[in-house]
């Protein structure tokens, strides 16, 4: 019976037909959608919050910018400890024995101390003090640099980021370098310097984005705009506009345990990787629904089709 039904459904329809002008339907649909789009655009417009800049960050929260610069020098920032694809300073995430992040390797090498602090400062005409600090830093061994920057980073953490309260210590040129970068950022010079590293034409914003993410400025702005992942931020948009609502299922996983708890191992700590695997599997499942027992039978069991084809069933007495 099932095979007969399948053959019947596959064969050209031999029953009654009705006139149906698909070209007219398409033109009407295009006109209607165009008019609705025009109306929505005219009434509501579209979101366009200005991008954040290093200038604004250093101006509005100088201590946080300064402390982030120190973290970059100390190698303790998110970028400096990230791992692939930016460096080899972390193992990245894994799903069981699959260390795909690590295996993919370093394809966009970022040396946080050099790329975010030293190289941008080196492009500037510097005061004697900062030029001297830069020369001292460049001449020092890696172990000495690490000792200076780590000591200062620890000291800043102990006073909870209140730069003015940091006691004197063996910090070498690190305070002068951080002050120099803060000053450069306040002038707007860092925004341009980070983008232009490597040439005249640039379309790659990786360094700016990563540096931004290392501090509190971007994170605070995301929280204020209700865009954090833990609050369905993935499907939100700035202002009162709809965002990528179609990502609701992707976003859903970040709302529930163990995915929403970074301390929970192994899944919570590797939530990004696990959720991508889940969504990849679900996407494949969507594509293969006709082959999945149970899921493919639900439409026959739950009679929503009786409403869709109500007239047909009535006329046929089915």
């Amino acid at each position, binding site marked *: 019976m099932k095979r007969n039904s*399948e053959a019947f459904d596959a064969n050209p329809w031999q*029953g009654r037909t009705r006139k149906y002008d*698909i070209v007219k339907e398409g033109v009407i649909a295009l006109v209607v959608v165009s008019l609705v789009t025009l109306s929505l655009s005219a009434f509501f417009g579209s979101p366009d919050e200005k991008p954040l800049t290093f200038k604004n960050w250093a101006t509005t929260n100088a201590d946080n910018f300064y402390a982030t610069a120190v973290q970059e020098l100390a190698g303790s920032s998110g970028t400096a400890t990230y791992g692939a694809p930016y460096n080899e300073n972390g193992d990245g995430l894994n799903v069981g024995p699959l260390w795909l992040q690590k295996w993919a390797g370093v394809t966009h090498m970022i040396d946080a101390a050099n790329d975010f602090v030293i190289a941008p400062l080196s492009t500037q005409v510097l005061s004697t003090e900062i030029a001297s600090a830069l020369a001292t830093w460049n001449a020092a061994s890696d172990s000495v640099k690490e000792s200076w920057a780590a000591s200062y980073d620890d000291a800043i953490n102990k006073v909870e980021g209140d730069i003015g309260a940091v006691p004197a210590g063996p910090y070498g040129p690190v305070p002068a370098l951080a002050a120099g970068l803060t000053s450069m950022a306040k002038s707007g010079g860092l925004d341009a310097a980070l983008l232009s590293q490597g040439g005249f034409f640039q379309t790659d914003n990786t360094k700016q984005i990563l540096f931004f*993410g290392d501090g509190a400025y971007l994170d605070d702005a995301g929280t204020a705009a209700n865009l954090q992942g833990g609050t369905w931020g993935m499907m939100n948009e700035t202002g009162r506009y709809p965002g990528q609502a179609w990502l609701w299922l992707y976003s859903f996983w970040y709302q529930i345990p163990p995915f929403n708890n970074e301390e929970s191992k192994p899944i919570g700590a590797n939530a990004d990787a696990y959720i991508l695997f889940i969504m990849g599997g679900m996407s494949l499942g969507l594509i293969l629904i006709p082959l999945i027992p149970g899921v493919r039978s639900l439409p026959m069991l739950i009679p929503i089709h009786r409403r869709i084809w109500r007239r047909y069933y009535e006329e046929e007495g089915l």
Partner: protein
Amino acid sequence: MMSEMWTSKLRKSWQKNLPIDKLLPDDQPAYVASWIYVFGVLTLAALGVIIATGIVLSFEGPAWYHTSSAGHFMNSLHFWSVQLFFVFMVVHLWGKYWMAAWRGRRLMTWMTGAVAFVASIATAFTGYLVQTNFDSQWITFEAKDGFNSVGVGAWFTVTNLGQMLLLHVAFLPLILGVITVMHVLLVRKKGVVPPIDAAISGVKL
């Protein structure tokens, strides 16, 4: 000799599988009488508006709409047509699920539609990345961790505006366009799926 030519083989195959009266029919089975059928064509119409407004935006570049009221309005048209596109497509998808529209050897029709849905999400996502505003800064920073975590980020670099812009305006629309054309041609070739249990009364037709 003529019958061996690839060109003539392709023409004959096309004529056999998708003759013009199947491609552009002026009648449909009587059961094609529900509002649910409208959502497929509405999805295509919204895609048309997206492509048209996207082409206009591409002529002026991604920063145009920040400084021009005409550009901002064009961006709004692009934004809202994407929102409508997804609403229509999701209703279309659910409708086809409850109709079990893969019946009657229509597996590929379902699969191309589902792939088009996934490809649409990828295309829209890259669009959000290239807005060159705060939202795109935020999405870029957040999204990179997901792609990096499974190794994809080594090559699909969401922080690279140039790469994302080119994928958004060239590669992904091309993929989506090809899949959509395949989907529509399959719908025309196979015809609209009959109602569930139509075979029961079909014997007397």
